[in-house]
């Protein structure tokens, strides 16, 4: 029962929430969502998850009410770990989802900063990049939405993990620059380095990202994602 790349990514995303306890997991994207659900079904049973609207869901059961304004309360309280997307991400973890090019007159207007500035200075943040490429992993982002380690993020700032379709990265270096933590099975270190537009910290002997267990695979395939939406995000 070989795991697909998408399934490896689901498990890698799940691992971001390991040890977080009774907090709100806010995944953005299909694979982060599946990761958070997998984490709660297995090693992180205390996580809270919203339906993306105003309910906290325990499986199919509504267990709480969380309208948008209450989410900002959770953000400020710090009892949340978000996994956001990134149109651009630099080596210190600055993230851009607002606009590409000169902000005053962008080449490509995207979503806007959304809650990224507040998220990153209030509680742990991870990122999910479904297509690891030099277009995303840039030397310098055009608009800092999510705050990186080379800026004044304050006492609650923490960027936990960056999960991509190729690898898992973190900031466990003396200067908090991005480091290659593991490569997914079938990906080489040089693949990741070539797909990254800045010098990446590469330790000796980069391990492989762990494979899903048989139980995790069964959960993903038979319960959490029977329609294989994961394969649309990472083919």
């Amino acid at each position, binding site marked *: 029962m070989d795991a697909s790349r998408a399934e490896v990514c689901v498990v890698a995303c799940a691992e971001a929430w390991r040890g977080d306890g009774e907090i709100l997991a806010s995944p953005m994207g299909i694979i982060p969502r599946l990761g958070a659900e997998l984490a709660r079904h297995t090693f992180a049973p205390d996580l809270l998850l919203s339906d993306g*609207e*105003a*309910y906290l869901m325990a499986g199919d059961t509504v267990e709480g*009410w969380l*309208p*948008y*304004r209450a989410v*900002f309360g959770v*953000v*400020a309280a710090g009892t949340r770990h978000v996994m956001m997307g990134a149109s651009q991400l630099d080596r210190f973890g600055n993230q851009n989802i*607002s*606009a590409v090019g000169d*902000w*005053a*007159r*962008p*080449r*490509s*207007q*995207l*979503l*806007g*900063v*959304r*809650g*990224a*500035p*507040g998220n*990153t*200075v*209030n509680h742990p943040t991870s990122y999910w990049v479904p297509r690891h490429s030099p277009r995303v992993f840039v030397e310098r982002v055009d*608009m*800092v*939405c*999510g*705050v990186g380690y080379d*800026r*004044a*993020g*304050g006492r*609650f*700032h923490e960027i936990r993990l960056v999960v991509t379709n190729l690898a898992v990265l973190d900031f466990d270096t003396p200067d908090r620059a991005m480091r290659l933590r593991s490569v997914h099975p079938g990906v080489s270190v040089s693949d990741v380095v070539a797909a990254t537009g800045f010098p990446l910290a590469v330790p000796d002997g980069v391990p492989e990202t762990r494979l899903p267990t048989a139980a995790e695979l069964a959960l993903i395939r038979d319960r959490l994602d029977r329609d294989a939406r994961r394969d649309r995000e990472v083919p």
Partner: protein
Amino acid sequence: MSLAGVVGELRSGMTIGIGGWGSRRKPMALVRAILRSDLTDLTVVSYGGPDVGLLAAYGRVRRLVTGFVSLDSVPLEPHFRRARQEGTLELTEVDEGMLYWGLLAAANRLPFLPIRAGLGSDVLRVNPSLRTIRSPYEDGEELVAMPALRLDAALIHLNRADRYGNGQYLGPDPYFDDLFCQAATRRYLTCERLVDTKELLAGGPPQSLLVNRMMVDGVVETPRGAHFTSCVPDYDRDEAFQRAYAKAAGDEEAWSRFRAAYLEGDETEYQEAVIRASLT
């Protein structure tokens, strides 16, 4: 009141707050009524969706104050993107929580409220007038002083209301509609159905009564007035229509056909055209 009556009380150059969130429970009938008017040069404060997109497409927005513009199921708003890329719209871009805090400050008649969001980010770079403030207490922490977002007018859409301006939401999320009203000088509420006051509490719990008559200056009954955004439990977002809207926005000819089909008549004609389109 009527839609035209509300628009008649608005003026070009005003700062107008629009309730809802993204493509959810937007006062679209009022937005469409603004498109039919000659109002222009507006500053719009919104958790942006197609309200912003349409007003921008018609060149009515001088400045937008927002944290995002999105159609939710269609992530990027095409008219907003074009306006930004062509440089026809000035933007005050703040974190979503900062927008909330700006409305809360205005609602509380405070000049600003301190917030952590924004620190370290380029929100401070692109808003050079934003200031930080140091805590006067022992901690001395530096925070963003989010200025009050005072509104000349607020436009919101709810499920039910009485004719006095008591309004009720029946979906799961109030969004920030009460705050938009509290931050504004003139407040206008459209609703799916106008009911007798005594019917309000029969329809939902007391906490569903989101706004009361001292927070509202005018009420208009506009069935399906949030279309094509969602207004649960009365109706979901019209995804097919939204896709058609987003697709038409990408092409000048398609957009003029869309305008001709839907936006050149009054609200009744709009709703009839939507029904006709859904039958074909």
